[in-house]
């Protein structure tokens, strides 16, 4: 038995983890999982939300806390069953044992202690670094994650998200672990930062030769990084194979489904399930075949949204700092029925533009005109008129619906506010909207409360609400970034389909170039508030000219590019 497991650093046998609540049956999250990790191996653990991957990661580092409990099986770390260790034994095992880099690096550091204190706390707890070597060692560790030594004197609140995530990695590294578990280490970070942090993790793993597990919802990132991938679905590992095999010869249908949602936005033809591939010339053809306004209940002709030389400067956040220019001299026009992408990393000003167009905030200079409305100087009482025509689809379906209102209430309100329909007619309209977004049987969905819906269904309700006023423009702010990969295509296809059927114009705000390629004709790339490149989506993405666009394209996780040789 022990002879067999000698070359394996970690050996998990029939591990089960359940969530227990008093007076209720335990809900299994991990169901009898078994796997081995060889010394020095870099393994990915992929799954969508609720697959049990994070629970498994916490269990193998013995960090699962109530209500989660290990209900069965063993975790042999270097021959010792750590599932049965006492608290103090476990604590001392953590040095030179197993370390964890948690999901949200934002909150993993104690806000009232400096980074240096964090290192010293660890050194003191294990006594493996002598008092007069502490500073040298801490400097060396932050150097390994490419941070300057000055961060040691900083408080977590003074660091950027990427720096904090690097600091947590350095702290975990200070344990000199043989196994490191990274739980979604870059999820909360901006695309470009995410790419840089992942590069650091890869280099570290090669240099230090620890065994590593990368937990992620993003198969692309995992395939780019790891040698072997375990795919988790519904509490079980459904496929466990070398990365190359996962990419080229996926066995399980779930893996195949995940893979099908990746693509290269630079390719000549791009498609994911549910969205037809767009030929390079499709953009111009689509513009020509726009449905006319007459299809839309005889309302006035569609208006063009004209944004001209708009800037937004926020007052300096603190004394002694510079005012922040969120948007800098941006001009564009959104033609009737057009679909335009606004892409950029977080902080590029794309969400600010959405706020300016919808009258939520006012530009510092420049003009925004929609029909007879001067949006840049809109009066309070005109806001309702604007919102009737310009609607919004929000990023997070979990906060965009009031948890206390039924779907029917949520959809009825805009119908009552924006149309003359009342009573049974209004209700008919609500059911029609539900049908439009594919939530059938409509009667059933109308009666539901948001918590009874899945993320994808919630986002469909959000879209139905945006359609309720029969608007001319829909602004979709990262509408799929909070959804699981498998659900994204469906929602995108719905948006695209609605645009073509009703002829609404769409401003699609995203950091995800692949989806921009799939659903838009025109694109604008924003960097620090300024447009650095714009044009037809397919030509811009296939032949990017600006340095920043190229960097964004390089940051797109792409299994096809993975180094699986």
């Amino acid at each position, binding site marked *: 038995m022990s002879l067999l497991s000698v070359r394996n650093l970690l050996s998990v046998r029939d591990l089960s983890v359940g969530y227990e609540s008093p007076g209720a049956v335990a809900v299994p999250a991990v169901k009898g999982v078994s796997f081995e990790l060889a010394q020095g191996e870099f393994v990915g653990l992929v799954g969508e939300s609720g697959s049990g991957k994070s629970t498994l990661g916490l269990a193998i580092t013995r960090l699962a806390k109530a209500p989660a409990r290990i209900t069965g099986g063993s975790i042999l770390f270097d021959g010792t069953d750590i599932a049965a260790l006492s608290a103090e034994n476990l604590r001392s095992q953590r040095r030179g044992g197993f370390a964890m880099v948690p999901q949200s690096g934002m909150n993993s550091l104690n806000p009232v202690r400096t980074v240096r204190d964090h290192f010293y706390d660890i050194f003191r707890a294990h006594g493996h670094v002598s008092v007069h070597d502490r500073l040298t060692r801490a400097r060396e560790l932050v150097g390994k994650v490419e941070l300057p030594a000055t961060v040691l004197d900083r408080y977590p609140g003074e660091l950027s998200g990427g720096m904090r995530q690097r600091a947590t990695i350095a702290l975990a590294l200070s344990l000199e672990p043989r196994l490191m578990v990274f739980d979604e280490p870059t999820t909360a970070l901006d695309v470009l930062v995410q790419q840089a942090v992942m590069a650091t993790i890869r280099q570290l793993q090669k240099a230090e030769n620890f065994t590593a597990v990368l937990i992620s919802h993003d198969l692309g990132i995992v395939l780019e990084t790891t040698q072997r991938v375990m795919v988790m679905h519904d509490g079980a590992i459904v496929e466990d194979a070398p990365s190359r095999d996962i990419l080229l010869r996926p066995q399980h249908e779930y893996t195949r489904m995940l893979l099908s949602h990746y693509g290269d936005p630079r390719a000549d033809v791009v498609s994911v399930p549910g969205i037809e591939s767009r030929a390079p010339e499709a953009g111009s053809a689509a513009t020509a075949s726009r449905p006319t306004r007459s299809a839309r209940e005889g309302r006035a002709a569609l208006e063009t949204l004209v944004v001209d030389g708009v800037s937004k400067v926020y007052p300096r956040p603190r004394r002694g700092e510079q005012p922040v220019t969120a948007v800098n001299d941006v001009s564009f026009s959104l033609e009737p029925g057009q679909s335009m992408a606004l892409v950029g990393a977080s902080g590029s000003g794309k969400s600010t533009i959405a706020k300016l167009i919808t009258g939520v905030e006012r530009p510092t200079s420049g003009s925004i005109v929609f029909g007879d409305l001067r949006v840049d100087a809109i009066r309070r009482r005109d806001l309702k008129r604007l919102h009737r025509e310009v609607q919004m689809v929000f990023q997070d379906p979990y906060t965009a*619906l*009031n948890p206390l209102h039924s779907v029917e209430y949520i959809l009825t*309100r*805009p119908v009552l506010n924006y149309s003359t329909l009342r*009573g049974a007619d209004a209700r008919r309209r609500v059911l029609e909207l539900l049908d439009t977004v594919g939530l059938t049987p409509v009667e059933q969905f109308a009666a539901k409360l948001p918590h009874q819906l899945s993320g994808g269904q919630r986002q469909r309700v*959000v879209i139905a609400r945006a359609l309720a006023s029969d608007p001319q423009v829909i602004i979709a702010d990262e509408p799929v970034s909070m959804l699981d990969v498998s659900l994204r295509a469906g929602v995108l296809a719905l948006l695209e389909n609605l645009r073509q059927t009703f002829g609404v114009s769409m401003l699609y705000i995203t950091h995800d170039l692949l989806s921009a390629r799939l659903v838009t004709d025109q694109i604008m790339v924003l960097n620090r508030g300024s447009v650095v490149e714009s044009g037809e989506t397919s030509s811009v993405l296939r032949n990017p000219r600006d340095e920043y666009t190229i960097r964004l394209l390089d940051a797109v996780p792409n299994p096809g590019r993975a180094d699986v040789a």
Partner: protein
Amino acid sequence: MTDTTIKKTFASRRGTAPLLMLGRAFAALWSSGKARIGLVILGLFVLVAIFAPLLAPYSATDNSFTRGDSGSPAHLLGTTGAGEDVLSQLLYGTRISLFVGIAAGTLATLVAVLVGLSWGYARTLVGDVINFVVNLFLVIPALPLMIVIAAYLHDGGIGMIVLVVVITGWATGARVLRSQTQTLRSRDFVTAAVFSGESSARVVFREILPNMTSLIAGSFLASAVGAILGEAGLEFLGLGDVNTVSWGTMLFWAQNSNAMLTGQWVLLFAPGLCIALLAASLALINFGVDGLSNPRLREGATR
């Protein structure tokens, strides 16, 4: 009329949903051991207050008995220095404390909700002024302010006490509710309601307000406790109407008739215990309410 049908569907939803929610909230409260004890104690006090005339052996103001009786079959808890039955006074006194707690608690919470919500939702310069006023009321010691106001409006009775408690007690709740309003205001569903063409009032009262029911309940319970203790304190100092029968005035008379020297400890002990029990029951219920709004504080959610 089609209009009425849809109104009916909403009316029925409005009618049932809050009731359902109330029921669910009660069940959740009941499942917490501490809150359950609080609810039982509070329930007993409410019953006593309602049925005081049936439960009390004598009238509370009847002073025809032997003075200073320290307990006999006819007067289980004895009689006061003025010859009234202590048990009857105690039972009737429940009414005053409960009334003050509920009335002052409700009014203070109402002010707190109105100030907290408008202050949290509006983004105007007025906000800074309100901020200052609320902070002022937060740091000014309430009881001395109550004493001073009560001294000017001498012998004002229960209404005066309720008023004084409300003036001094609304600020804490307003602050808590404001910060929650600010949190909720930035949620997408509030922005979405504005995009749905809702008026500001409707956004505040139909979108934001229902999401803070447990905070409002907590704020009510805290102001009710403050009101009950404040009322007792003022009456104990003789600043209320000393002729009403309440736990506070009982203690006032006990102190003034030197119950300590005569060894009538029940006179001192019983009213104070009732005040403490009533206040503690509300504090215990607040434990459960805390658990409703903050899952980490729920019982059984051990580490």
